[in-house]
């Protein structure tokens, strides 16, 4: 049984971590073919060919596939779909944009954000902000699945899959890219970082978020935020952790000035060690914390940064 896996490609580069994690999930289903699509995707395809467990790579390069516009990317995937029983991707915002469109074009349900593979038809997925885990069995001929990357380990490198090129499908011409606003950062990427330090509304301002960033830099960590911190303009949207933000499961997660609403817990409660710093001892975040410190963050965070 064959699996087509849509690689995460950003501006021609392979997002190795997300793609390699999806490969781990996909390997359990069958022979994995990776599709690298983009305005330029050859380098991404070469990189994907080295992931352990990948048996073939398809490279599709066309201006219409740049910036992962949903209409043209879905058309491409559907044009290749005949040969595969599973069509999968890491559950990134790009894939969540494209894969339901693919599923509907194939008249099958999509299985979003799967956190476990039971068998080729059966998957586990969190629902209700992670307050329940559902096991679903698909009766569709083709399974379209996105995999929650935080629950799978990345496949290693060392493979040498063959690389072929395929052509783009006809561009439906329904949408065009205008611009990206991407913040450049030297910090590790939030969803693959081993340590994450997140700040919430308690941090109080964009300026004071520097406290969070300093602690993160001391630990070589990524920086995260609660929705309230993002909504208040203390932090950019791509830092949001939670039900509707990013899902992370680092070795160490430090939540500072975050109350611990279920929507936030949904994005971090599978972290290995959770530290909470909050001045309110009743804050629900302490219920999931391994180590809780009831303190004013403006004193505790600088002290912690200094002592580590």
């Amino acid at each position: 049984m064959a699996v087509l896996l849509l690689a995460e490609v950003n501006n021609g580069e392979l997002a190795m971590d997300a793609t390699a994690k999806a490969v781990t999930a996909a390997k359990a289903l069958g022979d994995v073919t990776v599709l690298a699509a983009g305005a330029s995707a050859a380098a991404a395809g070469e990189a994907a060919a080295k992931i352990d467990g990948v048996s073939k790579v398809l490279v599709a390069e066309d201006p219409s596939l740049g910036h992962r516009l949903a209409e043209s990317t879905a058309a491409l995937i559907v044009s290749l779909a005949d040969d595969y029983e599973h069509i999968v991707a890491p559950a990134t915002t790009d894939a969540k944009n494209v894969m339901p469109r693919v599923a509907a074009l194939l008249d099958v349900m999509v299985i979003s954000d799967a956190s476990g593979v039971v068998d080729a038809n059966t998957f586990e997925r969190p629902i209700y902000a992670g307050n329940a885990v559902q096991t679903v069995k698909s009766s569709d001929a083709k399974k379209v699945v996105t995999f929650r990357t935080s629950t799978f380990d990345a496949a290693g490198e060392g493979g040498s899959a063959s690389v072929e090129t395929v052509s783009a499908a006809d561009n439906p011409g329904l949408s065009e890219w205008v611009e990206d606003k991407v913040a450049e950062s030297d910090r590790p990427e939030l969803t693959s970082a081993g340590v994450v330090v997140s700040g919430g509304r308690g941090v109080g301002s964009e300026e004071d978020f520097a406290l969070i960033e300093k602690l993160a830099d001391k630990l070589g960590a990524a920086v995260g935020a609660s929705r309230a911190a993002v909504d208040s303009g203390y932090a950019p949207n791509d830092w949001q952790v939670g039900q509707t933000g990013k899902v992370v499961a680092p070795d160490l997660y430090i939540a500072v000035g975050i109350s611990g609403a279920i929507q936030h817990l949904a994005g971090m409660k599978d972290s290995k060690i959770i530290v909470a710093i909050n001045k309110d001892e009743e804050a629900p975040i302490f219920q999931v914390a391994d180590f809780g410190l009831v303190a004013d963050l403006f004193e505790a965070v600088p002290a912690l940064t200094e002592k580590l």
Partner: protein
Amino acid sequence: MKVLVPVKRVIDYNVKVRVKADGSGVDLANVKMSMNPFDEIAVEEAIRLKEAGKADEIVVVSIGVKQSQETLRTALAMGADRAILVVAAEDVHTDIEPLAVAKILAKVVEEEKPDIVLAGKQAIDNDMNATGQMLAALLGWSQGTFASELNIEGDNAVVTREVDGGLQTIKVSMPTIVTVDLRLNEPRYASLPNIMKAKKKPLDEKTAADYGVDTAPRLEIVKTEEPAARAAGIIVGSVDELVEKLKEAGAV
């Protein structure tokens, strides 16, 4: 311009979810239900388009149990003009899958001919994040998902999207489906006079069969479980103790 907004009745986001002991699902009997928070944002955006003179009619539609009527009344009280209830389930525990919802919505779109469909990015019960994209596929329309900004410019919609790397702006041709994210706007509350007025606004009742759509699920729910619980942690007395514990645990 006509706007269609699909709204879903879901468990209120403040309610603590309880998994049923027999593993058949989440207990929804006698719990507070509300409009999916993302759909409130979609309704709000539609009303703002109308207030800005860009839209002239807002139709809201909900698919599910009869009680979804309450959700539609809320949308009417916020400012929508007309509602369509599509009864497709009898038991509040029956969730209609996004594919079937999208198929019904596609039929509603054929009848109503909206210029734009504003849906939520995801329903906070099944967390699927799929219906808008599926509807766009079935109609062969463009899609602008996870919108934090929306501008109608002639025959196009310019959509700023919240994506993993930050923000992406795209231009999609109309008619189109836009799914809305949390930071698009802050929805208004319905005032009491508007709640009263909403009772008189038109609400059509249909069934899934009226649209000839088979709502049989493609995904069988094998079981629903509580997530693994975390072991209880400890409260440390000082920053020094925290550092010590983290070192002991090999975390730093």
